[in-house]
């Protein structure tokens, strides 16, 4: 909805700057949106290459992303890396892993940090490249990336013994992809 509003504002300011206020712009916006389609792409959970962990259960993943677990089995401190609010991957993680919305997550971490149940809040990085570099530099880091963003600098972790390419993999994000004009 927020995206739709932004697109409408941009269109009204750039494409039709002299349009009357009462002109019907909604059909135009709907027409524009009609040129886009939602595509689902698997989200990959990545850790540092030195991390011995190869597989996590969905429950363990939820616990880690909600700050319920502070250290890995090798003693390294766990640092969760997330993208900024509004990002499709973040939305997918909040929905599928955390089972919360933004406000609920914010409240959860504020309460956890205040009570001392959570030691570190997630680190926020604005780009997939930043996430990769962070995970590469921090031995205890864990984050998520699109399949197309993953490279050899990070290590992919199975979820419930499923790789992103496997059938039954549960983490997917919806992305708006603009259709090619004919």
């Amino acid at each position: 909805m927020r995206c739709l509003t932004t697109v409408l504002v941009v269109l009204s300011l750039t494409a039709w700057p002299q349009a009357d206020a009462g002109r019907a712009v909604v059909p135009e916006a709907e027409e524009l949106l009609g040129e886009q389609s939602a595509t689902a792409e698997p989200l990959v959970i990545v850790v540092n290459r030195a991390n011995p962990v190869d597989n996590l259960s969905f429950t363990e993943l939820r616990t880690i992303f909600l700050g319920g677990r502070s250290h890995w089995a090798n003693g390294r401190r766990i640092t969760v890396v997330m993208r900024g609010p509004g990002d499709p991957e973040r939305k997918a993680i909040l929905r599928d892993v955390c089972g919360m919305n933004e406000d609920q997550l914010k409240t959860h971490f504020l309460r956890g940090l205040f009570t001392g149940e959570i030691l570190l809040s997630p680190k926020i990085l604005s780009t997939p490249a930043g996430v990769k570099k962070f995970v590469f530099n921090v031995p205890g880091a864990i984050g998520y990336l699109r399949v197309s963003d993953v490279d050899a600098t990070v290590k992919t972790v199975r979820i419930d013994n499923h790789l992103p390419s496997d059938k039954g993999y549960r983490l997917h994000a919806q992305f708006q992809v603009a259709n090619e004009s004919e």
Partner: protein
Amino acid sequence: MRASRQIKPVGNRNSARFLPFLDRVLSIASRHNAGLLLFMICFGVAVVAVFVVRDLQIASTEAQKMYSGSVHGLQQIGELQYYAQETRRATLYALTTSDSNLQVEYADQSRNADQRVKDGIAEYDRQAKSPPEVTLAVRLSHDWTNYLNVRDEVLASILEGSTKEAVSLDLSGGVPAFELVRQDLNQVKRLYDEDASQRLTHLVASSRRSSWRLAEILGFTFLLSCGAVWIVQRAQMLSSIQLAKLQMEFVASVSHELRTPLAVISSAADNIADGVIKEKDALRSYGSILQKQSRSMGRLVDEILLFASTEDGKNRYVLQPLQVSSIIDSVVNSTEGLVQSGGFVIDRHIEPDLPLVLGEVAGISRCLENLIGNAVKYGGDHRRIVLRAFGSPLEHGFGKEVRISVADRGIGIEPSEIAQIFDPFFRSPRVTAAQIHGTGLGLSLAKRIAEAMGGRLTVVSELNAGSTFTLHLQIAKGEDTRSEYVPPRPSPSLRP
């Protein structure tokens, strides 16, 4: 003869006492003074040039080595120091912010810089040759790896948000590890400085050596030039002495040649004046003797005058197309008395249809008379002279020429004297010893006449087997094919 004896010992005494071999060589070389001097100077210049170029190349190589080895090395170590500092500086910058995006950016900068340092250390390791350099390269690589391990931990702590832990790690491990790296880099720089200093010393020594060598070469060249000048002067002096000696021998020989008929004439005149000879037949015989001797004296004087007139080398002949066979007939007739008195026979082989030659009748006749006279004088016991006239291709270039050769089977010429027989006044010691009279002007004169007519005179001889003298005459081209030949005049036809 007396004058000859005065001069002869001077040259011989020097030669015999000091440098007999050198003088002999110089007497041969005296004909080529300019060429010899040029050769010596060229040789000296070439030697100097070779040494100078070699020294310049050595100096250039030393300078290049110094630049590539030391200057480039110092530049390399400067970059290493900069990127090592950059690695640490970027890590510390990450401490100054809590923005994870910026921290990641600084971590990235630090890793880029440390990669440059690793490459630099690997390059230094590859170039290391001496044991201290190899040891230092290994130590530097080890210390840098240690520092990077600490740096990675510090970066991880910063990114995790544990600033306090990061500072503690850096102080306890990073600072000492980086200090070791810094000391290693200073050591590398010191080694480069020492190497540069050594190379500079070598360069200075090489430059000094080159200067000395250049001075030695210049001195050598100076001595060489002095030697060349001395040799040329000595060759000229020997040449002058030889010429003077030949001239004295000529004067003696001419005096002798003149005195003999003069003595006969004087005796005959005395006998007639004193009334010793009264009979008519005896008087006729005395008249014949006087006539013969006076003509002999006249011929000798003519020859000397002719030689003197050709001395300046100017061409005074008026060349015209001539028939060779008729000139040969005329010459054979005029020398018939001489040939018969010596008991010789002339075999004539004249190629038919010979083309007209360019020359003057008197000149060609004079040459042939001289050659036939020589064949009679030096013909030995085999009293046959072969006179041939034939057409032949030119030795150099295209076209043909006519050759008239006079061959005898006499005493021949020493190979060492072949080059000298056309010199004026030259007479072979062998001929002089054999009491064969002559002035030493005949062949020289014949050669000059041949050249004045655009031809040349050559000789092929073998000792005790005979000689063949050949007169080469150019063929008249585009001239009237009719010969303007008239019988030879009694006097030489040289025009003033």
